[in-house]
C-alpha cells in the first residue's frame, strides 16, 4: 500500500474547504514531490467547481484553471500530485463517476466526507495502472506530518473559475 504524506496545514485546509462549500462539493489540486512509496504533499490549490448544474454531487475543474495550477506548481518546484474533493453527506469512497473521470494515473485522489457541514472521514486513493484500460483505485495510507508553515499559506486562493 502506498502512503500519502500530507502537511498538517494542508490536510486541515482541504477538510475546511469541504466545510466551506457544503452542501456543494469542493475541489482542488494537491502539489507535492514524488517519493518511492507515494507523494509528499506540501501545498494545495483551491479550484472552482464548474459543475454549477449539479454542484452537490459533481465536480469538475476547468482545464484552463489546471494549466494555471500546473504553472504555479512549476514555479514552486512542485508537481501536481493529485486532487481533492468532498462528498457532502456521502461516504469518503470513490464512486463510479470518480473512477470514470479519473485520468491522472499515478496521482492521488483525496475524498473527504462532509456530514451535515462537518468534515468527517478523509480517504486517499491512488489511481494505479499504466493505461485507461487497466487503471484501478488503490486505497492509500494517509500520514499527516507537522510543518512550520502557516496554515494560511498552504491553501492558496482559488484561481479564475470558468463555467464548463
Amino acid at each position, binding site marked *: 500500500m502506498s502512503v500519502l504524506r500530507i502537511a498538517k496545514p494542508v490536510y486541515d485546509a482541504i477538510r475546511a474547504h469541504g466545510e466551506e462549500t457544503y452542501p456543494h*462539493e469542493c475541489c482542488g489540486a494537491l502539489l507535492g514531490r514524488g517519493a518511492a512509496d507515494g507523494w509528499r504533499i506540501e501545498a494545495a490549490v483551491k479550484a472552482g467547481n464548474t459543475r454549477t448544474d449539479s454542484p452537490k*454531487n459533481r465536480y469538475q475543474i476547468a482545464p*484552463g484553471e489546471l494549466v494555471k495550477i*500546473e504553472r504555479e506548481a512549476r514555479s514552486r518546484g512542485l*508537481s501536481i500530485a493529485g486532487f481533492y474533493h468532498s462528498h457532502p*453527506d456521502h461516504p469518503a469512497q470513490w*464512486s463510479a463517476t*470518480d473512477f470514470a473521470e479519473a485520468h491522472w494515473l499515478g496521482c492521488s485522489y483525496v475524498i473527504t466526507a462532509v456530514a451535515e457541514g462537518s468534515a468527517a472521514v478523509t480517504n486517499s486513493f491512488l489511481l494505479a495502472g499504466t493505461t485507461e484500460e487497466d487503471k484501478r483505485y488503490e486505497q492509500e495510507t494517509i500520514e499527516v506530518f507537522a510543518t512550520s508553515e502557516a496554515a494560511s499559506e498552504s491553501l492558496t486562493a482559488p484561481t479564475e473559475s470558468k463555467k464548463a
Partner: protein
Amino acid sequence: MTIYIPTPLRPYAAGKDAVDVNAGTVSGALDELTQTFPDLRKHLFTAEGKLRAFVNVYLNDEDIRYLPEKDATAVSAGDTLSIVPSIAGGCQVSDRMNSFLWLTRFPTLSPERRRKGRARSW
C-alpha cells in the same frame, strides 16, 4: 517551443516535465513529441489518431479546440503547449450502497437525518 508534460505522462517522456520541440504548428509539435517519445502516443491519441476526449491541449492560455485553425494553428519559438488530462467526478454510489455506508460511517446521526439521507437521490 516548450511542451509541458503532465505528471501521469512523465514516465513515458523519460521523466521530463518539459520538452523543447521545433515545429511550425500545434500538430507538428505533438508529432515531434511522440516521435521522440513513442510511448506517449497511445496516451494522447486514439487508434484512429484523434486526440483522446479527456486530453486537453492548451496553446499558451487557449484551448486548441476553440482556436479557428485548431491543431493546424501556427506556433512560434516562445509559445508553450500544455497537455492537461481532465479532472472531474462526484459522489454517486448506488442508493443501497449509500444507505449501508452512510449508516456504518455516521452512526451518530439522528434517525431523522438518516431517513433524510436515505430519501435523497444521488
